[in-house]
């Protein structure tokens, strides 16, 4: 099981963690380095490795959950896929088309099929535009509709997300957080996309409203055959909504598996620690907690070898410090990037 410990050289054709059915999106060895510039000449003095070699596939109709703590690179992955920020390296194939090779106008055209919903419903809606204009904007940009068709489409979209079409004349400040997030979803759906990046769509909402928005997203997925990349830090929300889940840490995928397998039998020590840190709303249950030492290191200067080795309860030296563990399939459909995937934690400490 852990025989793949030769070198840090990445395998030439790594197995891509793929879901069931037809692949809609294929991301290979995606990297995004942000330059850190200093001085009057803005010389590049360092690089923040926000995403550092991420490979996965998303099947049509599924929800891939992407979890991780702050600085893990999950939001950057979402934005790179839509090329809202340009990836440094790697390939992104959407329905067989390589997105990184497209010109700006071709890419804009492609974005009809791929849209994004942002975390903060207070910041992502223009306060000076009416809800109707906000939702109609993608239709204007992508063209092909006259005014009355657009008005009709806006009314239909608002209804679809559970808002009254009469709201189109109102402004964002008149709405609660949950309603604003519905407006954001309506806008994302305007061009009839196939794929949505949902970047922390419910994190800013109260629990009772959060449940309503989660249900809405699931209903829409079923009705419109949507495929989701659901980015969140809340593990219980991700478990609820996802088909498969990828766990990120410092720009890399640590583990990727079918939801049930990941939550029931995580193989990576980081996944285990993360899951054990989630407080359970049941006072009769007392689980043993794996407390991780210290903080997440800065992506400016990530640890060598396995990026998790500085906090890992089962790290062994020198291998974990020197050799980057590849993301390999340990059980059918369950991928982990760890030299000692599945090793018991108590035993190793």
């Amino acid at each position, binding site marked *: 099981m852990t025989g793949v410990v030769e070198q840090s050289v990445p395998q030439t054709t790594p197995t891509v963690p793929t879901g069931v059915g037809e692949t809609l999106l294929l991301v290979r060895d995606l990297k995004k380095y942000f330059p850190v510039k200093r001085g009057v000449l803005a010389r590049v003095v360092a690089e923040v490795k926000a995403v550092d070699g991420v490979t996965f596939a998303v099947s049509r109709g599924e929800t891939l959950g992407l979890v991780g*703590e*702050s600085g893990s690179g999950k939001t950057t992955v979402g934005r790179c896929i839509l090329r809202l920020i340009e990836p440094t390296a790697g390939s992104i194939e959407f329905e067989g088309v390589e997105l990184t090779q497209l010109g700006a106008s071709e890419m804009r055209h492609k974005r009809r099929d791929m849209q994004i919903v942002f975390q903060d419903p207070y910041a992502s809606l223009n306060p000076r535009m009416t809800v109707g204009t906000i939702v109609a904007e993608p239709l204007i940009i992508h063209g092909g509709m006259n005014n009355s068709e657009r008005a009709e489409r806006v009314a239909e979209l608002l209804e679809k997300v559970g808002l009254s079409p009469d709201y189109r004349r109102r402004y964002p400040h008149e709405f*609660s957080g*949950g*309603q604003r997030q519905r407006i954001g979803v309506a806008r994302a759906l305007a061009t009839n996309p196939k794929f949505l990046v949902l970047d922390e769509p419910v994190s800013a909402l*109260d*629990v*009772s*409203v*959060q*449940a*309503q928005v*989660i*249900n809405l997203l*699931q209903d829409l997925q079923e009705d419109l055959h949507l495929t989701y990349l659901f980015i969140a*830090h809340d*593990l*219980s*929300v991700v*478990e*609820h909504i996802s088909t498969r889940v990828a766990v990120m840490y410092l720009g890399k995928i640590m583990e990727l598996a079918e939801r049930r397998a990941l*939550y029931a039998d995580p193989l990576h020590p980081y996944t285990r*620690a*993360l*899951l*054990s*840190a*989630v*407080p*359970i*709303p*049941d*006072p*009769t*249950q*007392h689980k043993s*907690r794996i*407390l*991780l030492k*210290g*903080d*997440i290191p800065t992506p400016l200067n990530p640890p060598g070898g396995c990026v998790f080795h500085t906090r890992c309860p089962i790290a062994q030296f020198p291998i974990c410090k020197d050799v980057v563990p590849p993301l390999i399939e340990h059980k059918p459909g369950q991928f982990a990037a760890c030299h000692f995937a599945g090793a018991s934690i108590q035993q190793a400490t």
Partner: protein
Amino acid sequence: MSDVLLEVKKLRTTFFTGDGEVHAVDNVSFDVRKGEALALVGESGCGKSVTAMSIMRLVAPPGKIVGGEIRFKGRDLVELSEKEMRKVRGDDIAMVFQEPMTSLNPVFKVGDQVAEAIRIHRKVSKKQARKQAGEMFELVSIPDPIKRLDDYPHQLSGGMRQRVMIAMALSCDPELLIADEPTTALDVTIQAQIMELLASLQKRLGLAILLITHDLGIVAEFCERIIVMYTGRIVEEAPVRDLFANPAHPYTRGLLRSLPSVGRDEKRLPTITGMVPPLTALPGGCKFNPRCPDVMPICLGNEPALMHVGDDHDARCYLHGDLADPERMEQPKSI
């Protein structure tokens, strides 16, 4: 009762805004007992933070405490002068806030900030205060405590900053710590570290903690008693185990049900319909009645009082009074 540390009685805090009076805290009464961890939970706008700020007498205009008592060991804090109150803060009751970055001054070393807090409350030399600050850093398990004294806030991670805030709060040995969403801005693995720290301090120092949070998971793991607030009122109060096993108020039941939880497999999440009404436009009768799945005619009339539903367990709901008697339900007195 001698084990009561803080007694809040009929507290009313109102904000006098351009749109009218907003009763953010409306007739709230509860006790905090010595050494206990009590949770105050609710959604945004329920009044939990304003309750905490009222206890500290830190409500800023246009907000004002307009009624009630806040008795700390028998002494009514509402009556104290600002000077006396300043002594209570820190010495008797201390507070940590959600956002550790905005609570620390970015241009001073964290050690100096903690030492300053100590010198405001204790007559000690600068050297002595710095030494004590170092000890406090050690108490809250900051690695390399003496070296960290000379760091500026931006040099520390979110978790470390929150430890500094806790160190500062505990530096004058208070008996009650009010923690307002202390881990909301932190990642789960760091949240686990901070909650573990608070739990150990509670035990070691015999500290009472009033934890303000929206996260029922944290409450379940950390607290002994819980108070649920809705629209400025207490709707349920109970020992944590009782509340999770037998939630008595439909709002509490809805909250618990709508929680996705690791290990719970459900296709659809049960929800509470509608949304929290704005405090300026509360419905008559029970404030939860427009969203309540169990609403009865009587709920539209007078607002229910807190009713006794078990040992130490109260709920503001007619389902639990003799008023919920089916025969009476047919003919509500006033609608």
